[in-house]
């Protein structure tokens, strides 16, 4: 069977978990087997994983899992995988998944490919999977030959698909032995984190001054988008560091990336070039970003962005 670890930061299943279960279900169909989801700690809506294709949902209720420790989590997933004879284990390629994927592959003696972005192809006992490499400049296809395979799924690579119905959750157990003491979790409430955002409005040095960001925020509000920025903008503290996207910042792959006053340097593109659709607004027609863009507007952002916002508002009002 295919075992999906459905992560639930602070007790709630989010998009990453629904994507992983959707991926796990489709992989299970390809292999002619079933998809089982595992949740850890107290989880509000675990049964909902049935909607996305899990035929069973297991939960280990141990409160120790409420604080994240990669060692305890990897050990629990490995135990459940072995007890149930999992041949593929699917994780989300998030801060959680990245902390446990390597551990799990060692524990299960499994080949690992992290950050896969499409469904596997089955080739006898082997699986072939693809991921983006060289910071988006190439795609690599991997072959995994081990009996057990571990895959972590890139965010926004598959759409959660509701195909079934909510099911009841079964209790499972596995020891939790962690050594990390979590003291505090600080999150910004009410903002969709960048890696999960479907629409991102991003701005660069072309904004001239942090006081000018109102037009960017207004546009983001209209689109229910998350805001991002280029590195020099974060480095000069015009915007908070968690907004920094690119090679040294966060790598994202939203459906729509709107780049405002950003030149499109190769290190910036490295973090955003997997976006589905890129819109570039820049007054310099030679800006390198236009080469990576789907739609471009050449002109002064201070004039264009407010009018674009007005057009989006008009559209939203009519839909």
């Amino acid at each position, binding site marked *: 069977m295919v075992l999906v670890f459905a992560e639930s930061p602070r007790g709630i299943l989010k998009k990453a978990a629904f994507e992983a279960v959707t991926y796990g279900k489709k992989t299970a169909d390809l292999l002619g087997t079933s998809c089982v989801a595992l949740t850890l700690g107290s989880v509000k809506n675990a049964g909902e994983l049935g909607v996305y294709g899990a035929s069973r949902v297991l939960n280990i209720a141990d409160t120790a899992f409420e604080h994240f420790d990669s060692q305890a989590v990897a050990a629990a997933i490995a135990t459940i995988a072995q007890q149930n004879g999992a041949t593929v284990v699917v994780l989300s390629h998030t801060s959680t998944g990245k902390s446990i994927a390597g551990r799990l592959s060692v524990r299960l003696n499994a080949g690992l490919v992290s*950050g896969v972005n499409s469904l596997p192809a089955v080739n006898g006992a082997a699986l072939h999977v693809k991921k983006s490499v060289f*910071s988006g400049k190439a795609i*690599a296809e991997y072959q995994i030959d081990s009996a057990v395979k571990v895959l972590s799924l890139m965010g926004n690579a598959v759409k959660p698909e509701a195909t079934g119905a909510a099911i009841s959750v079964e209790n499972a157990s596995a020891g939790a032995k962690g050594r990390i003491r979590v003291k505090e979790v600080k999150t910004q409430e009410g903002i969709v984190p960048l890696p999960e955002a479907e629409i991102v409005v991003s701005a660069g040095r072309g904004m001239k001054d942090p006081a000018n960001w109102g037009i960017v925020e207004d546009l983001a509000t209209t689109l229910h988008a998350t805001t991002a920025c280029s590195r020099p903008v974060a480095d000069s503290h015009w915007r908070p560091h968690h907004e920094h996207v690119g*090679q040294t910042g966060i790598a994202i792959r939203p459906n729509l990336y709107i780049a405002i006053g950003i030149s499109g340097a190769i290190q910036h593109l490295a973090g955003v070039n997997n976006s589905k659709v890129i819109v570039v607004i820049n007054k310099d027609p030679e800006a390198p970003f236009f080469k990576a863009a789907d739609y*471009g507007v050449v002109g002064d952002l201070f004039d264009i962005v407010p009018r674009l916002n007005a057009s989006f508002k008009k559209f939203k009002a009519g839909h």
Partner: protein
Amino acid sequence: MKLLVCISQTPDTTAKVSFKSDGKEFDAAGVQFIMNPYDEWYALVRACELRETLGGSVTALNVGPAANETTIRKALAIGADDAVRINADPQSAGFVAKQIAEYARSQNFDIIFFGKETIDYNGSEVGAMVAEYLDMPYISYASKLDLNGNTATLERDIEGGVEVLEVDLPFVVSAAKGMAEQRIPNMRGIMTARTKPLVEVAPVAFEDAAKAVQFTLPPAKAGVKLIDPENMDELVRLLHEEAKVI
């Protein structure tokens, strides 16, 4: 304080990426190689800072061929006290992790540092693997690391925020932006790096079950569609009807 920093060598951030042998192999011709930025800027520098305040030693470790010694010498110039090169082609994350773990097992390091990921294979896999081999706690994407006796306080980047945590030595950590500031090696560092010890170690056998078998370049963009700046309604229409993203 005995610190190990694992450094990877990667193509420069601006390198043009191409492949040879029908897409089976990365084409290194004309490519400039650098130390993986996160390993250099954050992991190595923070390890050197800790050594400077607490004493002890910083060892830089690379799994790679002799050609990587220029990169290793740079780590020594930045401040590592000595270096180890495990003499093997770094074929895969699993292979590299096995080599590092086998070396570190008998050395009693207090902290083993990694960068958050490499900019070539972007896997973020090796640190977690080494932690599992050595049965140590692992903290990934740490943007802050302070030590107080045997206990470390770290901040770890999570989606939309940070987690503050404590852990006792020894542990494995991967470093992200915020942990330290990039250091440019000075003349004295470059001079002393030449005479610092760099030991070559033989690899152990390991067969990774996951292998990259084919590389391709992403499909070229169709080309940008320029929109009349006076007609933003048209851009909205295209995003809705053509691109279908709103």
